[in-house]
């Protein structure tokens, strides 16, 4: 077979396939949609948003032609509002709570309106947030993903000197490297990073804490530290053949797509994705867009138990992905070269009758004698990210729970070490960007109170109810 980075489609076909799934609203569309909003008081959409953006307020500002004010309302509550406008699972958050969904089964397109407003200021670099007068204090942030960017923004607004340490070459974390390309491009994430940088936040990219710079140095340099490192590489399957050429980590696969250098993206005609979370969906939908002819999504439970959102599942179905439910991989078989993936041996699974020991999901067990082999060229693992347990060992006094998540105070995000705060996926185990943004906001409040004794409350720090 051909090398697995030879594109299966022409450049034009791939570009077409990766066009935005939710294109920007035109001015006419935005005004029409904004006027459809009933302007709820104490609105359900605002309560449903983890960052509690005042949605009716920003929508009415679109209707009144005040796009600068609209974007300010958004970014004040969520510094990554342009990213969230594109990647939030709105059907289970703001749009799911919209009264127009109740009334007419047609919620206001809050996500696309949010994009309309934020695009208007980001495209002009019209700053809607301002840095505070310097207060002489310094905070170091490890990780420039949603939590780190958010925390940095609020701290800069309070006058802190903020430095973000980022091991990658571009800032933005999963906003930059982990979002499905048809939802948002790196340019959006970089615009948001630039907005944060214009507040005076210093980004030290290509700087890995623990390698390029020690954590002890950070402790000496800064008055407080916010840890927003996210999670690690995708978990191993622990089956034979896992190290053959052609086996990829879903996040690494998506990261290559983000460069839009299609010739560098691995792809084959037959692709198997292991897992059924939202990242697995991102992998299958993008594999199809890259030209894979047969894409299998392999999951040991059923569609009912799959962690992916309904909307994401629908996307995969539209893309003609084949689902192998109640199926687990047992061995990755090499092709005739002996070094590359050639096939996948699977086994049928069955659900155990009861939730053993009160577990959240029913257990599964293999069906004896049910093994079968499917020919595949590429295997993509999307079985969840590992916790960075080893990395956290260098942080004095920081404690992890049994699941490997950092233990913090829920309101201040302070860890067991009073100078160290944490937020994002490393604390919640892996949720949405918007959840991480909210944790960054809470951490900024917590750090400020810890260093100055003063309590501040940013917009949307708490739900109204």
């Amino acid at each position, binding site marked *: 077979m051909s090398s697995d980075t030879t594109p299966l489609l022409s450049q034009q076909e791939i570009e077409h396939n990766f066009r935005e799934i939710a294109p920007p609203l035109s001015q006419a569309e935005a005004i*029409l949609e904004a006027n459809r909003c009933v*302007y*709820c*008081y104490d*609105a*359900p959409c605002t309560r449903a948003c983890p960052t509690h953006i005042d949605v009716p307020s920003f929508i009415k500002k679109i*209707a009144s032609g005040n796009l600068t004010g609209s974007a300010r309302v958004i970014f004040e509550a969520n510094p990554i509002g342009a990213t969230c406008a594109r990647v939030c699972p709105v059907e289970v958050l703001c749009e799911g709570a919209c009264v127009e969904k109740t009334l007419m089964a047609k919620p206001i397109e809050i996500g696309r309106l949010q994009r309309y407003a934020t695009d208007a200021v980001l495209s002009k670099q019209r700053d809607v947030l301002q840095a505070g007068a310097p207060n002489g204090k310094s905070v170091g942030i490890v990780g420039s993903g949603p939590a780190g960017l958010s925390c940095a923004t609020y701290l800069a607004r309070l006058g802190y000197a903020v430095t973000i340490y980022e091991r990658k070459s571009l800032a933005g974390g999963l906003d930059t490297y982990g979002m499905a390309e048809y939802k948002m491009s790196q340019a959006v994430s970089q615009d948001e990073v630039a907005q944060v940088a214009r507040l005076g936040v210093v980004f030290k990219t290509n700087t890995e804490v623990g390698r390029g710079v020690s954590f002890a140095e950070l402790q000496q340099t800064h008055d407080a530290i916010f840890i927003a490192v996210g999670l690690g590489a995708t978990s191993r399957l622990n089956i034979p053949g896992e190290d053959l050429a052609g086996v990829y980590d879903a996040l690494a696969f998506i990261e290559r797509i983000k460069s839009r250098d299609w010739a560098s993206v691995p792809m084959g005609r037959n692709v198997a994705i292991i897992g059924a979370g939202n990242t697995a969906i991102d992998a299958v939908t993008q594999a199809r867009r890259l030209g894979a002819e047969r894409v299998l999504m392999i999951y040991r439970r059923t569609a009912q138990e799959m962690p992916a959102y309904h909307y994401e599942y629908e996307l995969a179905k539209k893309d003609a992905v084949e689902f192998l439910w109640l199926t687990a991989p047992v061995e990755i078989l090499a092709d005739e070269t002996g070094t590359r993936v050639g096939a996948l041996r699977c086994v049928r699974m069955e659900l155990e009758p009861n939730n053993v020991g009160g577990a959240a999901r029913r257990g599964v067990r293999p069906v004896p004698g049910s093994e079968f082999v499917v020919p595949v060229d590429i295997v993509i693992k999307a079985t969840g990210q590992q916790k960075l347990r080893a990395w956290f060992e260098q942080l004095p006094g920081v404690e992890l729970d049994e699941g490997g998540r950092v233990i913090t105070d829920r309101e201040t995000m302070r860890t067991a070490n009073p100078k160290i705060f944490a937020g994002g996926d490393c604390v919640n185990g892996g949720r949405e960007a918007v959840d991480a943004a909210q944790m960054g906001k809470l951490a900024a409040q917590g750090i400020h109170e810890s260093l100055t004794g003063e309590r501040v409350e940013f917009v949307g720090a708490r739900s109204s109810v």
Partner: protein
Amino acid sequence: MADLSIDFVGIKSPNPFWLASAPPTNMGSMVERAFDAGWGGAVWKTLGEPIRNVCSRLASIDQGPQRMIGLNNIELITDRPLDVNLREIRECKRKYPKHALIVSLMVESKREAWHEIAKQVEDTGADGVELNFGCPHGMSERGMGAAMGQVPDYTCMVTEWVKEATSLPVIVKLTPNVTSINPPARAAVRGGADALSLINTINSVMGVDLDTMIPHPNVNGLAAHGGYCGPAVKPIALNMVSELARDPEVGVPISGIGGISTWRDATEFLLLGATTVQVCTAVMHYGYRIVEDLIDGLSNYLDDKGHTSVCEIIGASTRRVTDWGNLDLNYKTVARIDHAKCIQCNLCHIACEDGAHQCVPFTQIDGKRYPVVDEAECVGCNLCYLVCPVPGCISMVRLDDGQQPLTWRQLTNRQPAPVSGD
């Protein structure tokens, strides 16, 4: 199907829907197309001494995505030669003998001028004349239009002049730019008017371009007030029509004008005392074709209500309009919210809280927070009912038994006469 035909002071019309004197009735070919579309009548754009117009002429206000809820214009009367208009009127009437063709007139305040033009119009075979005493812009600066309608003695005098010169029915079109509509209406009737039409347009400045800071419509950097019309003016027109319909000193048929876009609007005018209605802005927005639903909707409404003729509903609601002092102080309604329909937008709560009487607090019901009316505090103002976006969710429920009505007039008549301290 109910009979929609109308006899308006001798002018026969297949239905009560007329085009108002305005750009849609500028010339013969337009009026003929309107008649073909179904319009029962048309009032020809005002004839007079030809004028020169400016550019631009129109401006509007929008409400959200709804364009042109209000329109304003500074266009004057016809800019076509009188003889051309008269010829086309004659041809049009000949081709459409069953349609109502009325000609709007405006000349300077000279008896001979009015005599002359009235006779010329009568000679065309048109069904009637409408005296334009209402245009608020441009012509009023020359002593015509609203300048005549705002001085009852002029209104009476010029009406008399026209009545001297023609046997055609004379309709006087009134301006709303007066403190009270009754004195000019009564003056027109004193002067012999057979009927009244109202309202003409309202003095207005439509807005300002925020970039250039020049008001609309811009005429080379300047703007002048214009005449306001369109859906937004309907309530003002309904008030004036109903005021005249219940004025015993008026007592002549009324052609209602002002913001009519749908058969519902038109029917409201009929119910409040108009015999015909005139439409302009809605046609300028959507074209002559809207008359199809005006006819269809009114016809179905009449059928549903069991009426055989539109004449049966004319003025049916006039007696329902009265002075505030005749309203029953003991009539008591309160709002009730159907929580099965409530979508929890909370607009009723905040409207009552900040705009009324703080009587729609929140209450937990089945773990959800709903607005609930405190009936002991509710004054029955309707505000929550008006803002609720869900059909049928909030209803106004009557609480009194209707047995002891009491009006303010009755209440004050019962007071003992003030004691004079001699």
